[in-house]
C-alpha cells in the first residue's frame, strides 16, 4: 500500500460485496488495536458492534449498492479489546475486474460523539417537556370544559329560578289589586278621603311592581329561549317600535329611519330590542327632536344604530347601563332599568354585541352588531 495512504490521518479500508475485507491501512489497524497485525481475510461485520452490523445490513450496504457512495454514516466500530469506537464513514464503490469494491474512509469521533450524545439527550428532554406540556394543556382544556359545562348548568338553573320567582309573584299581586278594588267597590261611602288616597297609592305601587315583574319575566325568558333566526327587515321593526314609542310619549318627534336594513335574527326578539331602544330614545329626547335609525354591513356583521338628540350620558357611567336596574337619571324619567338589560341580553344571545356612544347634552347613539350568518 502507498506509504501516504498507509499513514493517512484516518482509517482506510476496502471490502467486497460479500463483506470480505481486502485491504486496511495502518492508521485503521492502530485505531482498532491490531497494530501488530491479526486483521486480514475477515468480514467488515467483524469490525462492527451488533447494532452497527444491523445498520450496515439494513441501511449502509443497500445505499452503497444503489448510490455507489455514502457520506457521513455514523457507526460504532469494535476494537480488538471489544470496546466501541464511534466513527464517521464515507465510502465509494469502484468497479473492478472481480466485482465491486467499496473504499471507506473512517474518522473516529469520540469527543464529537459525546457532544452529540448531549444534544440528543437535550432533544429527548425537550421532547419530554413538550409532551408533558401537551398533557397539561389537554387536562387544562378538560377542566375548562367541565367548568364551562358546570357554569352553563348553573346559569340555566338560575334563569329557571328567576323565571319561576317572577311568575309566582304575579298571583299574590293580582290578589292585592283585587282586594283593594273590592275595598273600594264594597265600601263606597265608609272610606275616608285619606283611606282612598292610601288605596290609590297602593294601586300605583302594585302596578309598578307588576310591570317590574313582567320585565323580569321577559329578561329571564331570554336566558331560557333560543333565538329562532330568519331573514328579517330590521328597518320596519324599528319604524313600528318608534311609532309606538312616540305614541306612548304623546309628543311629536322627527323620525329618520333608513329602509331596507335586514338581518338574520329572531323577529320577536329584535322587535323587543327595537322597542327598548326606541322608547329609551324617545324618553330622553326633547319634544320635536330627531330620532334616527340606520344599519349597514360591516365585515361579517350587520351594525345598526338608534341615535337621539337627548340629554346624553356621562361616559364614565356608560358601561353600567346594560346591567339590570342600572339607572343614570332620577325619578323624572320613568322606568325600572330593565329595558336595556333585555336589549343587551337578546343581542348577546344572538352572538352579537351592543354598545353606546354618548356625550352629555348632545344625545346618545346605541349601536348593536349582529353576526351575518346567512
Amino acid at each position, binding site marked *: 500500500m502507498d506509504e501516504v495512504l498507509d499513514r493517512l490521518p484516518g482509517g482506510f479500508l476496502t471490502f467486497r*460485496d460479500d463483506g470480505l475485507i481486502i485491504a486496511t491501512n495502518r492508521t485503521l489497524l492502530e485505531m482498532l488495536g491490531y497494530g501488530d497485525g491479526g486483521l486480514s481475510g475477515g468480514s467488515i461485520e467483524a469490525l462492527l458492534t451488533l*447494532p452497527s452490523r*444491523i445498520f450496515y445490513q*439494513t441501511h449502509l450496504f*443497500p445505499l452503497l449498492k444503489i448510490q455507489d457512495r455514502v457520506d457521513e454514516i455514523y457507526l460504532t466500530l469494535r476494537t480488538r479489546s471489544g470496546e466501541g469506537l464511534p466513527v464517521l464513514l464515507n465510502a465509494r464503490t469502484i468497479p473492478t475486474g472481480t466485482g465491486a469494491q467499496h473504499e471507506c474512509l473512517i474518522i473516529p469521533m469520540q469527543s464529537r460523539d459525546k457532544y452529540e450524545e448531549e444534544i440528543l439527550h437535550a432533544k429527548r428532554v425537550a421532547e419530554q417537556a413538550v409532551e408533558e406540556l401537551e398533557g397539561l394543556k389537554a387536562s387544562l382544556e378538560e377542566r375548562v370544559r367541565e367548568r364551562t359545562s358546570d357554569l352553563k348548568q348553573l346559569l340555566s338553573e338560575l334563569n329557571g329560578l328567576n323565571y319561576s320567582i317572577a311568575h309566582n309573584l304575579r298571583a299574590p299581586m293580582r290578589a292585592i289589586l283585587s282586594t283593594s278594588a273590592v275595598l273600594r267597590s264594597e265600601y263606597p261611602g265608609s272610606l275616608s278621603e285619606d283611606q282612598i288616597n292610601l288605596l290609590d297609592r297602593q294601586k300605583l305601587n302594585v302596578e309598578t311592581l307588576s310591570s317590574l315583574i313582567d320585565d323580569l319575566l321577559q329578561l329571564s325568558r331570554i336566558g331560557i329561549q333560543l333565538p329562532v333566526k330568519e331573514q328579517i327587515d330590521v328597518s320596519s321593526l324599528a319604524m313600528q317600535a318608534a311609532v309606538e314609542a312616540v305614541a306612548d310619549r304623546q309628543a311629536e318627534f322627527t323620525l329618520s329611519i333608513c329602509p331596507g336594513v335586514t338581518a338574520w335574527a329572531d323577529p320577536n326578539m329584535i322587535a323587543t330590542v327595537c322597542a327598548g331602544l326606541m322608547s329609551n330614545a324617545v324618553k330622553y329626547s326633547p319634544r320635536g327632536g330627531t330620532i334616527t335609525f340606520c344599519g349597514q354591513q360591516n365585515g361579517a356583521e350587520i351594525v345598526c344604530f338608534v341615535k337621539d338628540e337627548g340629554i346624553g350620558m356621562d361616559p364614565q357611567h356608560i358601561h353600567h347601563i346594560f346591567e339590570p336596574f342600572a339607572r343614570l337619571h332620577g325619578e323624572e324619567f320613568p322606568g325600572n332599568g330593565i329595558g336595556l338589560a333585555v336589549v343587551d341580553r337578546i343581542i348577546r344571545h344572538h352572538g352579537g354585541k351592543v354598545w353606546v356612544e354618548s356625550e352629555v347634552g348632545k344625545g346618545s347613539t346605541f349601536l348593536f352588531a349582529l353576526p351575518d350568518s346567512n
Partner: protein
Amino acid sequence: MMFAHGFGCDQNMWRFITPAFETDYKIVAFDYVGAGGSDLSAYRRERYSTLSGYARDVLDIIEALDLHDLVFVGHSVSGMIGLLAAIEQPQRFAKMIMVGPSPCYINDGDYVGGFGHGDIEELLKMMEKNYMGWSNSLAPVIMKNPDRPELAQELEASFCSTDPVIAQQFARATFLSDNRSDLQSMKIPALILQCAEDLIAPAEVGTYLHTRLPNSSLVQMKATGHCPHMSHPEETIALMRRYLDG
C-alpha cells in the same frame, strides 16, 4: 409479482432483480407508507405501530389493482408482512418468496432470534445519530412544501432515507415483532431464501421457520449477509426462478 422492501430502504433495492422477471410477470413494486416516495401525509402512527398496518398496505394495493395468482416477494421483515397479508386473504396469493425472513428477532427462552432488547435500543440510538444531520430539519420542510420540488429532489438524493420518527417506528415494529404463533395459519406455499452468515436472520431462524411453516421450502444460499438480492442478484434470481418454474 409483487416486491416488498424491508426495513431501511425502499423499492429501489429490487432494481437488480425485477428486470429478470419482467417478460413473464406483471411487476408491482411499492414503498410502504412512510418509506421512499410514499405520501408521508398518509402516515398514521397508530396504523404503522405493528406489522399488521404494513400488511394492510399490501392488501390495499392488491385490492386497488385487483391482483390475483400473486407471487409475493418480501425481503426481511416483509416476509412476515406478506405472511400476515396471505393469512388474511389467501385467495389472492399463489406463492410466496421470503428473502432473509424472521418470525421473531429477539431471543426468547430456547428460541434464538439473534438479538436482545438492548441491541435494538442501541440500533435505535444509532439511527438517531445518522438522522441527526439532515432529517430533523429537512423532513418537515418537505412535507409542508409540496410546491417546492427542489426540496424533494434533495431528499431523493439522500436515497433510502425516511422521516426519522417514521424510521424509528418501523424499526420498533420490525424488531419487536413476534409472529411465531401466526406461522401455522399460513396456507400459501413459501420459499425461504436463507443467506449464509446473516446476522439479522441467522440460519437457526431459517430452520425454525421452515419446520413450522406448512408447505415451505428452505434453500441455503451461498450469498452472505442480509441482502442477497443486492449483493448476489444472479444467485437470487436463479433460485427464485427454480422455485417458480418447479
